[in-house]
């Protein structure tokens, strides 16, 4: 019996249309828009100004705090302006516009395909390199990686868990990366183990990616301490706390960090980025993005420069289908409908999903029938129906007492509700309010 997490979970249709498609590198567009907040935490501070010439990999913005990340240019060319731009958040935020001229890379970057296995750097040097390369969690949460690798005093890492679950329907970017860059990923995992000083790592992969499991299991034989663990298919297994529960059977307390149970969880894409940063001196400025949807002509996995407008990706996948109702940034469960197709790809963009008009219709909301389906679906063991009610009545004390702040916004409750109640929409808004109250109380 394969392992999985123990509380809740749902089984949405997988729809992995682009599975098995090779990763295609897209050429840089004419202009890139690189947002300064591509990560959780303080926005980065621009270090270039209008008219500056930059190369691929040039540092253009420095981390603006402890929880923040460096940003590098993804193209070579001239800085056009630093101005507000609409990004995946749906708001206008500062971004650097760069006009592309040629494709000249920084000399320090090793562009060869040769695999570099050996690494003589110490733990601290690896973490410093990761920090300067601006690596963030590539699964979508975009938490700066170096912060996760520096456990707060009193905590000791025991195991590195690599999140290769890709439980979101439709998305295949991690899957394709594992098939094509298996060796590099394993070297990256070894580096992460060295960085936090542990000798065991588990790569958790859902059982619907059998080719990837077989491929990595075979390769992992050459890497001591790394184990590939097939997991049952269940959403949201890619959630950090869910994956820890599935792999090492430990539960993270409310409000605690994964390190409190000795786990450091990193996405498989992050492991690859760590390999490139440490062994090839290549900062994070491109990533694999899945472009998919039932009406899309060629669902594909593209290697894209950060800052490329999403419309370019859609064009490359065969153009926007006529009956497109919504363009989703990310997967169908946790992704967000985009305001415009001109928003740029960021470090956390894992996919672009084009829903048809029929698929994107919201069904009318009905009254709660107290069936408790949302309660059984919630992977955090919360009561979504009540949390929604507390938000509607603005009862923040009760919302907090019932752990609204533990919601991971996976959307299982809304998905499973037979009355089509927008549970997550309300809970997300209530969670924001309660988090604000908690923060105000602490300060």
């Amino acid at each position: 019996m394969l392992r999985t997490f123990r509380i809740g979970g749902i089984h949405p249709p997988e729809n992995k249309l682009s599975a098995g498609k090779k990763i295609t590198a897209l050429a840089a567009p004419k202009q890139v828009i690189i947002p300064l907040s591509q990560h959780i935490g303080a926005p980065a501070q621009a270090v270039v100004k209008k008219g500056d010439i930059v190369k691929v990999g040039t540092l253009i913005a420095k981390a603006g705090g402890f929880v923040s990340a460096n940003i590098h240019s993804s193209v070579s060319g001239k800085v056009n302006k630093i101005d507000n731009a609409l990004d995946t958040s749906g708001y206008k935020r500062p971004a650097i516009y760069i006009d592309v001229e040629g494709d000249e890379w920084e000399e320090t970057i090793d562009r060869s395909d040769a695999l570099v296995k050996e690494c003589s750097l110490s733990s601290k040097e690896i973490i410093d390199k990761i920090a300067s390369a601006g690596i963030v969690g590539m699964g979508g949460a975009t938490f700066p990686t170096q912060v996760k690798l520096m456990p707060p005093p009193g905590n000791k890492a025991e195991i590195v868990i690599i999140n290769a679950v890709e439980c979101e329907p439709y998305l295949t970017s991690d899957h394709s990366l594992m098939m094509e860059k298996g060796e590099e990923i394993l070297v990256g995992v070894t580096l992460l183990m060295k960085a936090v000083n542990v000798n065991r790592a588990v790569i958790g992969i859902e059982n619907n990616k059998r080719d990837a499991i077989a491929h990595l299991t075979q390769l992992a034989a050459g890497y001591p301490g790394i184990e590939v663990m097939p997991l049952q298919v269940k959403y949201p297994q890619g959630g950090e706390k869910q994956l820890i529960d599935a792999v090492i059977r430990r539960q993270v307390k409310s409000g605690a960090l994964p390190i409190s149970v000795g786990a450091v969880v990193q996405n498989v894409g992050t492991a690859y980025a760590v390999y490139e940063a440490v062994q090839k001196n290549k900062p994070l400025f491109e990533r694999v993005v899945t472009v998919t949807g039932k009406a899309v002509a060629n669902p594909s996995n593209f290697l894209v420069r950060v800052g490329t407008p999403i419309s370019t990706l859609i064009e490359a996948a065969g153009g926007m289908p006529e009956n497109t109702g919504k363009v989703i940034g990310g997967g169908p469960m946790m992704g967000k409908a985009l305001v415009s197709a001109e928003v740029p790809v960021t470090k956390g963009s894992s996919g672009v999903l084009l829903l048809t008009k029929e698929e994107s219709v919201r069904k009318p909301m009905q009254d709660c029938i107290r069936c408790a389906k949302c309660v059984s679906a919630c992977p955090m063991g919360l009561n979504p129906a009540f949390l929604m009610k507390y938000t509607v009545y603005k009862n923040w004390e009760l919302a907090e007492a019932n752990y609204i702040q533990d919601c991971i916004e996976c959307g299982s409750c809304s998905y499973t509700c037979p009355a089509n109640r927008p549970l997550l929409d309300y809970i997300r808004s209530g969670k924001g309010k309660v988090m604000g109250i908690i923060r105000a109380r602490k300060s």
Partner: protein
Amino acid sequence: MILIAVISLGAIGAIGAVFLYACAKKFEVYEDPRIAQVQEVLPGANCGGCGYPGCGGFASACVKADTLDGMLCPVGGAPVMEKIATILGKTVAEAEPKVAVVRCNGSCTARPRTNQYDGVKSCAIASTLYGGETGCTFGCLGYGDCVAACNFGAIRIDSETGLPVVDEDKCTSCGACVKACPKNIIELRKKGPKSRRVFVSCVNKDKGAVARKACTNACIGCGKCAKECPFEAITVENNVAYIDYTKCRLCRKCVAVCPTGAIHELNFPPRKESASAAQPKAAEVAPKTAPNKPEPVQVVETKEDTNQK
């Protein structure tokens, strides 16, 4: 037999009564009788507009406070505050009546839709998701959280413009709508003499060209109004102008120069000639609010003149 029952029950009752009386005396909590009196004259809406938890909270705060300065029941206004003052034997400072003002004039025609929102019709929820259905991410979303928050039925959404409209007679300036608006568009401003007000009806912080593209009624931060204002009441910050209502003397010169019509005037009689009509209005209005203040105005004007020379 009956007698025994009567006597024993009577005795138990008497002992109980003595015990309860002793307890009541021993653990008595003294409550100022004036709190109840004050609460009597309060409107009892429990709106929280005063900043205290309901009318009871406000009443006890009034009794405890040394002076009534800064205390105001926005619903009852000055008459209620005077009643409270007489009960407590304190004096009350004259507070200026205020009214909620919606600072967005991006109507459906001025602000074209760029996308469609089909989620929950709530401003609080929509604003956690994105900037809104139009190119302006600062403007009114129009789902009516302010309408739901108002206890007095003083706000409604105009079906034509899609924007909230405040009914001045019903508005008690309790501030519930101000708190409910996630975009911070609604502001409590001085009601003004004869309810006359001038305000910038826009909060868009984008650069002029961007703001204008999203909404033809947007403030573009050009600063013409600030230059025109003889009273230095207008400041332009983050590409949006703001009129300080404590300095504004309602001359309406700014309204005339605003290229986009973002500055609104309310309850003024129709103007005949823009310049000549505005001037006497200022003079006529000014003495009512503050009789001894026209002088500094003169000084400001002469200063500007000398600077220009």
